[in-house]
């Protein structure tokens, strides 16, 4: 695997892919992604698309929470801004979907900066509480400014087209979804190899020390809010185009909690973790629902309990990860790698004493 890799200069040490094994794994993963849609059933394609969108959203949230240490419970609100901006721009102004997605990302970034302003004076849990307020305020605007957003009614989004083909089919959207998720992951990876990204991490680890070495703490936080919201807005806009129909119920505080759960379960401040967490939190309820359909015939009483089971399992997964593996799935992945790193000559605790 990764034995005998010694970096002899800085260029390789900070490289995007530091060891050849990573290239191989990434290549295999990409190949699997390319083959997948031709083999998978529509059910699995649908799940894959949801995971792609969730990965983008989770990466965005991770930039803010995992890398910069600013806790945000406003994810649902930011996704709502992205979704409604793109939907309304296409619907009312007839802009092409590509343009309106970019506009939606920029609009969400602006809203993110606005709600990031309290971070000038607040941090930690006070900031977290102020983002709860942001969430409630945006939700209220969406449901009460009916002239613009249609209020509590759902908004039907025109189907996106590319080369004369509809993109909101499971198969068509898949390519858009994984391409954008890939770009987002690459951007995030490169961001944290750059000076700007490093300053995000410096602010997270110790803001006073960061300001001493010349990082503009407030500006960095706002930039983190903007970058994060940009991708969260992208996830929101993609949700709108994929679902064809959006309503405020999709972007409540529960959505914020869902995404926070993804990055906690996956691993704060890791790119791989965002993908793992998005996949787990998306697949878990789907799996439980499948079990529910199986049980519908034989044990309808148990099947009726399944929504509660879904919710309980969701809470339990969060708590178990926090108590037993706070670094999440990405740490588990590293443990597996470490095990094979020196396999079969693993050092075991207590041996050879």
């Amino acid at each position, binding site marked *: 695997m990764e034995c005998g890799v010694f970096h002899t200069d800085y260029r390789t040490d900070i490289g995007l892919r530091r060891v050849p094994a990573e290239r191989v794994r990434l290549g295999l993963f990409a190949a699997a992604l390319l083959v997948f849609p031709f083999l998978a059933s529509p059910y699995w394609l649908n799940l894959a698309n949801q995971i792609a969108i969730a990965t983008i959203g989770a990466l965005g949230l991770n930039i803010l929470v995992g890398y910069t240490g600013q806790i945000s419970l406003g994810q649902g609100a930011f996704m709502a801004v992205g979704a409604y901006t793109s939907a309304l721009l296409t619907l009312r102004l007839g802009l092409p979907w590509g343009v309106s997605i970019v506009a939606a990302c920029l609009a969400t970034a602006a809203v993110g900066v606005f709600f990031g302003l309290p971070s000038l004076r607040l941090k930690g849990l006070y900031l977290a509480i102020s983002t709860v*307020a942001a969430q409630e305020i945006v939700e209220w605007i969406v449901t009460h400014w009916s002239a613009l957003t249609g209020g509590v009614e759902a908004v039907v989004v025109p189907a996106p087209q590319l080369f004369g083909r509809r993109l909101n089919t499971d198969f068509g959207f898949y390519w858009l979804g994984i391409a954008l998720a890939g770009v987002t992951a690459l951007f995030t990876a490169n961001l944290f190899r750059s000076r700007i990204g490093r300053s995000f991490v410096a602010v997270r680890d110790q803001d006073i020390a960061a300001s001493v070495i010349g990082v503009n703490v407030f500006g960095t936080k706002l930039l983190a809010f903007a970058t994060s919201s940009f991708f969260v807005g992208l996830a929101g806009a993609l949700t709108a185009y994929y679902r064809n129909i959006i309503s405020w119920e999709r972007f409540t505080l529960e959505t914020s909690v869902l995404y926070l759960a993804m990055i906690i379960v996956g691993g704060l401040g890791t790119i791989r973790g965002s993908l793992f967490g998005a996949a787990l939190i998306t697949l878990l309820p789907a799996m439980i629902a499948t079990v529910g359909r199986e049980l519908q015939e034989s044990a309808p009483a148990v099947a009726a309990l399944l929504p509660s089971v879904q919710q309980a399992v969701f809470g339990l997964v969060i708590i178990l990860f926090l108590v037993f593996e706070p670094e999440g799935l990405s740490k588990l992945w590293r443990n597996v790698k470490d095990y094979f790193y020196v396999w079969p000559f693993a050092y075991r605790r207590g041996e050879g004493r």
Partner: protein
Amino acid sequence: MDQFLQLTVAGLGTGMIYALAAVGFVVIYKASDVINFAQGDLLLFGTYLTFFSLVQIGLPWTAGVLLTMLVAAAIGLAVERAVLRPLIGEPIISMIMVTIGLSSILRAVVHGIWGPQPRTFPSFLPEGEVMLGSAVIGADRLVAIPLALALLAGLALFFRRTRSGIAMRAIADDQQAALSMGISIPRVFATAWALAAVTAAIGGIMLGNIVGVTPNVAQIGLRVFPVVILGGLDSIRGAVVGGAIIGLLEFYAGGYIGHGLNLIVPYAVLIVVLMVRPYGLFGREIIERV
């Protein structure tokens, strides 16, 4: 004038329930610096426990309320021991997420056992309406106000006079000093959670009387944030005053302006307070500034 009186009493009544929810929140924050996102679900649990003991077992209401409080205290202790203690000293995000996970589980348990349909239990607050001048006011709300105030006063007395109350304040002040004076921190944390669960249960019982036994009770949990931020995160007096102000504002905004503005006013207040005076009306001014 009539409308004003009605709105005032209704607002104060709701405000006192907010205060009961907020006090549990403040007790936990004071003792252990944990923001409890599950406060609303503890309330929900209290409501349904009362429904269970009054209707499903058929206990008289004194015994039923006592049973509810005992079970709530036991749940508080269990939660602290199983979930919170392993996380002492972890970053804030872990604390927030763990209480969110807890809230999800509590809600799932309530939903799984009792289902989504609204229920009622026999009211032990007086029913009917009272004429105050020419304003019509629900008697239950009128009684709920002094009842809640008495409970809150009792709690304040607990913090001033009793041994464990003083121990809790000592830990809030300086953990290390408290530890070297022989105060057991885990025990105080456990007491704090039990106390929070019990006050939430009492709030839940009153809510069950006024708005009925429905899953919506849990939404009060979010209303707690404006209340505690306005009053000051670590102040019981603040929770009471903050609860009253937020309750009143909500009803005045809803009654005089409308447009669903009552839903948003508390959060607008929250943001303004956070920007201008983050430690709230009565909180201690030790908030970390950036």
